[in-house]
């Protein structure tokens, strides 16, 4: 199932669990850089973060399921009816 992932970057704690679970789901290994979601420190001082998705992300919603800070919230997508 594909989800809409709502991002509230100001709530992000920088734990990188979203990246870790993504790399685990796709590779069964851990490396945050391999994740389809990327969290980067905005100011270099570990307080604010930017969250981006790479194009290959299938919006499986696992990152949001593991996010304990409310920075990622998944929302069921209503399929377009033609």
């Amino acid at each position, binding site marked *: 199932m594909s989800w809409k992932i709502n991002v509230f970057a*100001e709530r992000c704690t920088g*734990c990188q*669990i979203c990246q870790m679970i993504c790399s685990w789901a796709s590779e069964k290994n*851990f490396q945050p850089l391999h994740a389809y979601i990327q969290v980067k420190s905005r100011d*270099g001082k*570990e307080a604010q973060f930017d969250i981006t998705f790479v194009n290959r992300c299938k919006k499986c919603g696992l990152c949001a399921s593991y996010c304990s800070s409310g920075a990622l919230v998944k929302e069921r997508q209503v399929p377009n009816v033609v």
Partner: protein
Amino acid sequence: MFKIIKIDLINQKIDVVDGMNLHKEFLGGLGVNTKLMVDLIPPDSEPLGPDNVLIFGAGSFVGTLLPTAARTELTAKSPLSNRFGTANSGGLWGAALKFAGYSHLVITGKSSIPVYLMIDDGQIKVENATHLWGLDTWATVEKIKQEKGSDFQIASIGPAGEKLVRFASVINNYHGAWGRTGMGAVMGSKNLKAIAVRGTGIARVADHLAFARIMTEAFKKVLSNDHFGYTRCYGSMVVADPYNKIGALPGLNFTCGSFPDWVETRGRGFFAKNYKEKDLACFSCPVACAHWSRVKYGQYEGYEAKGLEVTYTFEFGAKLGIKEIAEILKCAEICNRYGMDVVSAAGVIAFAIEANQHGLLKELSREVPVQWGDFPGITSLLDQIGKRQGIGDLLAEGVKIASARIPNSAYYAMHVKGVEIPVRDPRGKWDVWTLGNLTNTRGGDHLRTRSTVDALLSPGHNHLEQKIGRCRRSCSRSGYA
């Protein structure tokens, strides 16, 4: 992922050896560190001499998604206790080391010039650090990130480590610290300014199914624990109010277990309501017990800092009597920039203030603030200690050595095995805290024999209702030394 880097700074020789067998025999960062320490450090070595060995060890699960697996242990012979020294820090540094392919880093010898280590996946280099020597830790981190890349994780020492302040710490990027037992002084004694790590490799697990089951179960247990919400909200400050209530604060150098205005000035609710901006986490940790704070009013309006941690609050707020949270955060920043342990720094200053109140400092008394909570005086002393200037040169030796040089002052030196007693009055719980302080492996310590607020509330032992720890004169403090 479990390889060990061995670096001899005398000839800059670098070896990488497999550490899997050690990991099978000894548990985690501390277990392997301890084994390496026993094997490599001669019993009669000087802590600040070239024979001492500095050992960084990331925990076994660091680099995986097991919740809270972010900790790295730093071990060497301690210049404070002259015995087993070890400190622990979270953040991102350990995970970077693991992703670079290593679990441990063993540093021997002493460089003839200031150097720093750069570990960039398989590339390990010893670089000249002459241009970094003398910089504080934040400037050091910024400089290395500018030169090598912003994605490096950096462990560095500040001026305190360079000047061999016996309780100097190693700072983990900006705000984390391998704080206790003077590991920064050992690093300084080796002329080693920093260790920058970047890892782009992968962390593997042997049994995917078993790991996934354990990982999921661990996440569920952490997130459904009764204390999760409180710990997320207040962080380590969760114990600030209960400890005040039972009289277990180390107030005014352990003479005052609770303060009447504590909850309104330095309490956990007051902090969360008036200062906390957001929650922050170490790598792979869903608890997120750290915070970012901003001062919203008063003379420090607009000042931002990471914190508040209960260690800062108890050390500067209780032990030294500073009431203003912004000033407590400033004191912590000064310690982090100099690279010195918050606990020991507050401990020696509390010792100096009390010794001075009893007229023991004689001609040195002009350099010590007489009043508790004197923020300008306390920051001035922190500066002097970090630079080893004036009385700071004496206090930089820690309370045990300082008290030995000031006649009749040993009664006011609060330490175990030379390591200053941190955070809480051990008399708050005789069975765990007192015994733990006296018997744990690294001296004065609140973490190795830990019973946090949940233990205070355990059935039949509701310590919240007990009034203890306020009557220090009835207790012999010399028993701790």
